């Protein structure tokens, strides 16, 4: 087997634009992962379930019943998107009330596994309610396209990018400049100490999970117009979001967005043929290598910090 590395500079710019647009879709999910990690130091695999709920609910509410074999509602898209976010926030709050109260003292790995179970349960539930769904052509909240350079970008992608940047900026400000952000950081550092100084740990935790749930559902709703919707489709997107969050070190919202951008551009460039023809398998290997490198670097940083702190 010969692997010839080529470079096609003429398609680099479109690949970068396409990568940024694609990254915005799983960047929102990556932000929710970082948000949860910052309060309870666990990887919120449950966000894959939240995205699934959001995606299915958005499809169910907005798809025109005349062109669907399912009894969808055909509601206006923007209000439906708002409803999806509210449902996601309520589910997130329910989940958060469990993990922030009864499971507050559980090890992180246990909480993470519980989240895996919740994701699996939600995926199974959507698959039970909407059996056999395999839908394409789900309309985004905004239709139409704009030309940027030689690349066509949809309004939906631009809207997603805008949402990503606004959410990232808002979360960064809230975490750095508000009392709520200080509470979250205090709980992440030492939840028992935070409780002693009067912070209502479970209430703050539930609120953070509600925000994360809303973001997860929003991410799912933003993704489905550009994907095929079926029972387990959005779990794949979770891997991309995880990669973005890991590249961002799970700590910084801005770095998570940067991670999503880097990952999106690399994926788009490799998949788009900037470096010659590369099959889907190699793209997945690149994903895992990026994950591995990110995880090893984070782990080493934490070890160094732990040794330094002793």
């Amino acid at each position, binding site marked *: 087997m010969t692997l010839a590395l080529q470079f096609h500079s003429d398609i680099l710019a479109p690949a970068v634009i396409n990568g940024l647009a694609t990254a915005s879709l799983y960047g929102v999910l990556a932000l929710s992962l970082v948000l949860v990690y910052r309060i309870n130091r*666990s*990887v919120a*695999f449950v966000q894959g379930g939240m995205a699934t709920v959001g995606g299915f609910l958005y499809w169910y509410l907005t798809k025109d019943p005349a062109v669907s074999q399912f009894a969808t509602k055909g509601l206006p898209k923007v209000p439906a998107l708002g409803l999806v976010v509210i449902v996601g926030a309520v589910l997130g709050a329910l989940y958060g009330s*469990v993990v922030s109260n*009864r*499971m507050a*003292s*559980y*090890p*992180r*790995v*246990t909480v*993470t*596994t*519980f989240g*895996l*179970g*919740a*994701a*699996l*349960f*939600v*995926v*199974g*539930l959507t*698959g*039970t309610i909407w*059996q056999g769904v395999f839908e394409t052509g789900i309309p985004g909240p905004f239709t139409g396209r704009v030309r940027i350079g030689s690349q066509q970008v949809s309004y939906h992608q631009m809207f997603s990018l805008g949402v990503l940047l606004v959410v990232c900026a808002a979360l960064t400000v809230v975490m750095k400049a508000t009392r709520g952000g200080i509470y979250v950081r205090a709980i992440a550092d030492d939840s028992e100490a935070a409780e002693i100084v009067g912070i209502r740990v479970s209430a703050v935790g539930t609120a953070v999970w509600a925000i994360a749930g809303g973001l997860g559902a929003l991410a799912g709703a933003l993704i489905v117009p550009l994907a095929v919707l079926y*029972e*387990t489709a959005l*779990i*794949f997107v979770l*891997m991309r979001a*995880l*990669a973005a969050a*890991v590249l961002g070190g799970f700590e910084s919202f801005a770095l998570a967005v940067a991670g999503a951008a880097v990952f999106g551009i690399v994926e788009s460039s490799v998949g788009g043929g900037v470096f010659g023809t590369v099959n*889907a*398998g190699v*793209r*997945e*290997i690149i*994903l*895992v290598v990026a*994950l*591995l490198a990110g*995880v*090893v670097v*984070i*782990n080493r940083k934490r070890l160094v910090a732990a040794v330094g702190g002793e």
Partner: protein
Amino acid sequence: MARIRQGARRYADVLPRGLPPWAYLVGAVVAVGWVRVASTTWVFLGAAACILAIACMGLTILVGWGGEVSLAQASLVGTSVYITGYALRADGLHWPFIPAAALGVVTVVVLSALISVPTARLSGMYVMVLTLGLQVTLERTLFTNARFAGGVESVYTGRPRFFGVGLDSDRAYYFLPFLVLVAVMVGLRLFRHSRHGRALFMVGRDRRAAAAMGISPLRYKLLAFMIAGVLAGVAGALTTPLYRSPPTSLAFISVQSLFYLAVPVTAGFGSLAGVVVVAFVFTMTPHALESVMRISPLLLGGAGLMLGTYAGPGGFGGVVLDRVRARREAGLLAAGEPGAAVAAPAGELDVRDEMTTSVGGGGGAR
């Protein structure tokens, strides 16, 4: 003669204590006899449940005994399914079943050992991320390769014959995964009480204490991953002839790995028999309810994983056994028998009592 007696006692130790001999006889008759009266659909599902139990016992060893975690078990099973199928098929290598299965198992064991290398110094959470990454990589590479997975064309894989006995019917084939499952349970029970089994438990319970006692955590971590790999490989090799043609790769995608993890978490990591029970329940319940409503097996798996984790280190199995033990102790205390407080009920409580896990409940290690 003494050696024979010693060996017999060792194998007798495999059986749960406290059960009367007739209970074993009834159990064996039921396990074998139901195949004669049930429809072939149920027998087919029974074989699938035995295979699921074998794959999930790998996770019992890895997660429950070794204190590690893997979200790549379904991809390992799938790898073995497709490699074994390719080695068996007339348009592939056209090998006999045993060498073909061995190729599938060895491939998976090598993969599983490779997973353990980068995860050696990572915490459980990051191991989850990385193993999930491997899972997705395998499903996007090997599972999309038409040569192995069959693509859109259906490729036929025959069922094996042993000593002139054909296993072509579903009733006959059931006995192959069933006997392998029994052998795996006996083997794991013996391993659990061996020097290496105790060392693996020690590593899973307290890695630093194990290292202080001269046990290499890295070596036993590798061993746990390899045992999980062997069992995933065996499960995959048995799956290939069960379906006769390669099952769709959707049977081995990432959510299926969560489903696999749900089985031992629901059963509790102390009971191998519990894993078998939960595997049968998870496999057969959707079919049993089909006339009332169609439910996704993932729904059951998710509920089991959530409630099993929520219940504590022993999962549902642990909760049930705790109740049995409490009732038995209360009965013994009421009868005034000495040593009541330490008496264990029939079953596998001796295993559960010695284990902790990083996954279930609030008492985990990490």
